[in-house]
């Protein structure tokens, strides 16, 4: 019995963690390459969720297909934000860049509140895929599929960074902006693409999350803070780190919720984050005082 419970909680955590990984991968990419903490990230996730919701209600498009749609929408939004606004302060001190993305988020999130209101929306699929049962462990297939899709997307991002032309340019700019510029890379464009890719990951994750969690502009901070925690857990600017960090956080939250009650899941992850920052800022992130 205890073993079944243990595995049930573990599986729940892993399913959740896959989705978290997808959220964090984009956030981590932007932080690592642009050295900007994108406070907008949570709101991007929410926009992705709304896109999927309305695509399903009005067009009947399944959220898993809307992942592409949401990704494209958010990529465009992200690209424009970076190209038009954030690029102007990209090398400025932390206080400036952080205040800027904060300001942008206040604006964007408040706009969502005005348009969609704070009321929670729930997307109920007309034909849910049912529940998978294995050795006494239950997993809703929709969730499982969302997780697999999320992990697939995260791997795709990894592949893009490793193998594609644009990905190599991003990596080059990250390592040495001056040198990359000399070799003909348009750094401003690359920054914007990077930010766009980060937003794309957020939007896609949001579309998948719409099947699982209620949708409201209010939950954006929740997603944002998870992205923070995962980045510190898994290491900065690495897709693989986001993947590991996401899965770890999912499992920790899942077990923490079991022990302390689900309403404290968030607090547990925050405490974890602060402890990590205090005791092992170098060990986990590899780089100390990265500014």
């Amino acid at each position, binding site marked *: 019995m205890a073993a079944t419970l243990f595995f049930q909680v573990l599986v729940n955590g892993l399913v959740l963690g896959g989705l978290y990984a997808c959220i964090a991968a984009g956030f981590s990419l932007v*932080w690592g390459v642009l*050295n900007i*903490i994108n406070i907008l990230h949570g709101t991007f996730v929410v926009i992705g969720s709304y896109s999927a919701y309305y695509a399903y209600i009005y067009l009947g498009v399944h959220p898993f297909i809307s992942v592409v749609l949401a990704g494209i929408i958010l990529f465009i939004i992200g690209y424009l934000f970076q190209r038009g*606004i954030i690029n*102007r*302060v990209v090398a*400025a*001190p*932390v*206080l*400036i860049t*952080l*205040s*800027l993305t*904060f*300001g*942008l*988020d*206040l*604006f*964007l*999130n*408040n*706009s969502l*509140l*005005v348009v969609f209101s704070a009321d929670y929306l729930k997307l109920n699929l007309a034909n849910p895929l049912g529940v998978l049962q294995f050795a006494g462990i239950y997993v809703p297939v929709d969730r499982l599929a969302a997780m697999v899709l999320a992990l697939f997307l995260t791997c795709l991002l990894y592949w893009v960074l490793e193998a594609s032309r644009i990905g190599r340019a991003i990596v080059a700019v990250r390592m040495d902006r001056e040198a990359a510029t000399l070799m003909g890379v348009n750094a401003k464009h690359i920054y914007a693409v990077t930010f766009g890719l980060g937003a794309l990951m957020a939007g896609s994750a949001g579309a998948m999350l719409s099947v699982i969690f209620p949708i409201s502009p209010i939950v954006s*901070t929740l997603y944002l*803070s998870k992205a*923070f925690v995962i980045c*510190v857990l898994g290491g900065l600017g690495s897709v693989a780190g986001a993947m590991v960090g996401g899965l770890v956080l999912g499992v920790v939250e899942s077990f923490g919720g079991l022990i302390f009650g689900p309403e*404290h899941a*968030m*607090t547990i992850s*925050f*405490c974890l*984050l*602060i402890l990590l*920052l*205090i005791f092992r*800022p170098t060990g986990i992130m590899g780089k*100390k*005082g*990265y*500014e």
Partner: protein
Amino acid sequence: MKTKLVGLFVIVLLLLIPIISNNYVIRLATMMLMYSVFAMSWNFIGGMAGYPSFATASFFGLGAYAGALCQVNGVPMFLAWVIGGLVSAVFAWVLGLAILHLKGHYFAIASLIVAEVLREVINSATGITGGGMGLNIPVLRMGVDAQARLFYFSMFVIALVTLAVSAYVSGRPLGFGLKCIKQNEDAAGMTGINTTIYKTTAFTLSAVFTGGAGAFYASWVNYIDPEDVFEILISIKPIVMVLMCGAGALVGPVIGAGLFLFLEELVWRNFLTFHVGMLGLMVVFLVIFLPTGLLSVDYRKFLKKVVR
């Protein structure tokens, strides 16, 4: 000499406010003084030491709850404010020792998240704090007009003390050392500055008055809840105020607070459902176009440009 005259003029003006104006203006003026306490307090760690602190909400909320709980349990109001300030200060000292070794983004995030944790802790301690239901603070037995003036003058004193401490610190080795730390922390250490103690002291100074203001706030509005006093915006506002007038300057934060409150009030009145968004736009505008502060603009040049 000139600055002293201006300072004197401002003080006289502030003292005249409760005599010549109505309760609405007094409330706004009290608010402005409280904001200037936030900004001056933030300036210790953010302006002087150059650490991007987002901990104002933590200090404020903690002070508010400490003061409120004292008052609920029969401690006199003024003493409760002092206790509120001290509780925040002790908290900041311990927190500072733990997180001030972090740099840049990591410090910013750590300081930001503390407020979230505190909020959750207070939310969960329902037995003591009333949790999400909030906490009622005993109302003073006096007329509305008298109350408004009492609170105004109290805040005036708190702000004056904060200003005095800021001025004192910036002219002493502490302020000088913080300036060195801001420019190059490693070099500051090798020059003989005990950077850990200096930074932690600055962090604590930034907490003590903010905490006092929190306790004051609880008495002033008679009701607090975790969502209200640990609101993330409280951490951002002082930064915007200081940014408006250029970081590091002594009276900059005070002027910034006045300006900010004016804009906020304007936005509140005209954009009821969208005031947070407008606030956001304001921040964006400031950061992009005036990163060194409004005071740094050469107005004559600016006017010439506009006229042509």
